[in-house]
């Protein structure tokens, strides 16, 4: 069965103070079963790197509501009023990053790069305390790479080697995070034998993926069908 394991096995790597990357965009492409496992385990003071904190009772939002998060590095919190409340009350630290910058910082973390030069954020509060660099006559902001101890990602399909195929707009940050953490787990809807995913269709090579778990719960706000990958 190769890399297939249980949620409990994965959670042995998630403790108080763990730095986590979690995939998804407003809950789509988020590993809901693993999040439910973390809620059940009750670990505290997590740092979470993700695009957003979803909605209060959904996806990453559950970890915020359950007060398990110390720090967030995200691009958007507007859909989760509880994140805003905890931030205003000083209960949670929130570092807001432009979405494209966040994506590239994660990519840099996984790609062995020392940073990213981007024009995004120049002349705004995002640039405060950061170095600017002139390259080819243009001004850029130096943004530093992000890595995590554990990345929890969501894919549609995995094979025994951990090769992944994502479906539709659930891909988002998942392939980037797969390269940027010490321990990477993919929650998947389908687990297939080696060879069932053509090498031409693999979106994230299995070498990035340490373990696979099969999805048990699905949080999407609307119960809807899927038209095949």
């Amino acid at each position, binding site marked *: 069965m190769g890399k297939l394991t249980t949620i409990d096995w994965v959670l042995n790597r998630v403790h108080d103070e763990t730095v986590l990357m979690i995939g998804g*965009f*407003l*809950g*789509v*492409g988020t590993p809901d079963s693993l999040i439910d496992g973390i809620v059940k385990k009750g670990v505290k003071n997590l740092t979470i790197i993700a*695009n*957003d904190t979803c909605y209060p009772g959904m996806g990453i939002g559950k970890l915020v509501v359950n007060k398990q998060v110390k720090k967030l590095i*995200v*691009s*958007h*919190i*507007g*859909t989760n009023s509880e994140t*805003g409340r905890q*931030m205003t009350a000083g209960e949670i630290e929130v570092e*807001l990053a*432009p*979405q*494209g*910058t*966040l*994506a*590239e910082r994660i*990519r840099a973390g996984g790609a062995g790069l020392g940073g990213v030069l*981007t*024009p*995004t*954020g*120049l*002349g*705004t*509060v*995002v640039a405060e305390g950061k170095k600017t660099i002139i390259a080819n006559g243009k001004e850029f902001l130096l943004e530093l790479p992000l890595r995590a101890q554990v990345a929890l990602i969501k894919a*549609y399909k995995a094979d025994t080697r951990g090769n992944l195929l*994502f*479906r*539709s*707009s*659930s*891909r*988002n*940050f*998942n*392939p*980037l995070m797969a390269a940027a953490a010490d321990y990477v787990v993919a929650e998947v809807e389908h687990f297939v034998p080696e060879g069932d995913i053509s090498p031409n269709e693999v979106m994230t090579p299995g070498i990035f993926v340490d373990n696979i778990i099969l999805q048990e719960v*699905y949080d*999407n*706000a*609307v119960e*809807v*069908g*899927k*038209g095949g990958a």
Partner: protein
Amino acid sequence: MKPKEIIARRVARELRAGNVVNLGIGIPTLVANYLPENMDVELHSENGFIGLGPVPQEGHEDADVINAGGQHVTINTGGAFFDSAMSFAIIRGGHLDITVLGALEVDEQGNLANWMVPGKLVPGMGGAMDLTVGARKVIVAMEHNAKNGSAKILKKCRLPLTARKEVDLIITEKAVIEVTEEGLVLKEVAPGFTVEDVRNATEAELIVSSELKEMAV
């Protein structure tokens, strides 16, 4: 016609066949409803695809196909999904022709503020900073004044900026205003309003274009 519809209809006239366009949340999203039939515009969704299609019929939603506002949408035949790094490579790399965004404030230099009100509202910038910096043309689509009547087109933005000097065109229910090196140029005034009406609703200085037209919607 409601102000929002007037704005969306006028913005739609800025789009050309073959353009790659990102429509922000709110009034900008409505622009898609007023594109000429069969006009081939590629709509980009920053959560990771090109070929954004209409909202599906009830019961035909696909859980994995949402837009950046979290609504269920569709993807057109010939569209493509990708990851967030490629999505923002499209935005930042000069591959996005037009972005249409809402605004809290915009000023004479083309500075834009649309992501936070300190102490009141801090939703985060999401993709707005990258879109404003990266798109070849930045169109602000918004109601001319705030709900309390105060000006939103200012001499200088007071709220924290989304990006500096990036706005090209401002389209409201009252006017079309171009951002130029010389300042804000009033190009079109909507039916039912005068230049004075627009000036009174605007804090920024307006230069009246020598080719001032009635706004077509």
